[in-house]
């Protein structure tokens, strides 16, 4: 019981849960576990089923794509206070890149597949999740556009 209470507190303390209702926090708590990753460990790999998503509590994660012959390229990073991964909410629910811990990482891991399964019966929950994740996707798209422009390149 105390573990669940601790987990709920960790979720409430995370910036991504700000403004979330008690009911939804309790629902998320039921799908969550606290995880730790050693440096070099993969949180997920490209093309795997995107059934889990993470809220990082501490540490830094590199998002990487293997691009032969250039090798592995880091395209983004996530750190403390940030959510990691939105492929769990968008079909076909597969990761589009690797996520590798650059240092010791503590994260809340959520069973995205379980949450997705509840969306049709619980529209407010679905709305709450999409309301939080769509801006992430939007900002990620904008950032990607800016990266593609190579703004720091020679003019």
């Amino acid at each position, binding site marked *: 019981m105390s573990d669940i209470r601790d987990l709920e507190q960790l979720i409430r303390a995370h910036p991504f849960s700000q403004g979330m209702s008690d009911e939804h926090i309790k629902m998320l708590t039921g799908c969550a576990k606290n995880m730790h990753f050693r440096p070099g460990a993969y949180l997920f790999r490209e093309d795997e089923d995107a059934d889990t998503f993470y809220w990082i509590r501490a540490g830094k994660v590199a998002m990487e794509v293997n691009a032969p012959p250039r090798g592995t390229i880091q395209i983004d990073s996530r750190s403390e206070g940030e959510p990691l991964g939105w492929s769990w909410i968008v079909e076909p629910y597969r990761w589009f890149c690797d996520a590798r811990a650059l240092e010791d990482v503590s994260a809340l891991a959520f069973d995205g597949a379980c949450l997705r399964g509840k969306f049709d019966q619980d529209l407010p929950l679905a709305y709450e999740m999409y309301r939080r994740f769509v801006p992430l996707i939007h900002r990620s798209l904008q950032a990607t556009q800016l*990266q593609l422009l*190579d*703004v720091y390149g020679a003019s």
Partner: protein
Amino acid sequence: MVPHPVSIRELQRETHDTFTLTLEPPDRDQGLSFIPGQFTMLYLFGTGEVPISISGDPAYPMRLVHTIRAVGSVTRTMQHMQRGSMLGVRGPFGKGWPVEEARGKDIVIIAGGIGLAPLRPVIYHLLRERGDYEHISILYGARCPADILYSRELESWGGRFDVDVSVTIDYATTDWYGDVGVVTSLLDKVRCDPGKTVVMTCGPEIMMRFAARELNRIGITDEHIYVSMERNMQCAAGTCGHCQYGPSFVCKDGPVFRLDRIRPFFGTREI
């Protein structure tokens, strides 16, 4: 308006296309006093003149420092000059960063690429007068690790307990352990009170536009955002009209502008 002949005291390579020139000041007794954010016109005899922001420490006017990116015929030639070679210098010109108005406030510095050079004097100033300012955050974005400007200084500033320094790059290989992503992605981690924050930003114009959008999103309004604009500055005195920007001249009324004062023109395609 006549360039003073000065000699190159030091030439230091910063990145593959960027270098720093330390010049003897035109007045060897007084040096060249400047306000952080001002620029000079550097004249390469027989080739041409370019506007370059002063990137040295305003407390040391005897060291006239410019960090330059080799992108045109003048700057490419300067890149290969030797110690003791002569250049012409005019200035300093323009309006600088609002270091006085910013006293007592949180400060956010956002720089991209070579845009860190015009901001370095203001960073020196803020650190020297640290007690006069609240929380200070320096956010810097570069293309890749090899393109990071002033990496040793960034490391040293980041080692202080009273300044937050974040560096992010667009792309990295697996030996990079820092942040990856655009510089605006660092804004969510900045500790500041939006109502009493002054932001100073310099970098590619599109980066500054994105930064302004993100700053507005987190509650920092245009009158607290200062941008350093770049246009085709030639006379540096507001008479030739080459750097006209709406009703202003970048050389005389800028290069640092408060964003609300240029908002109608900021990002306008024809201007």
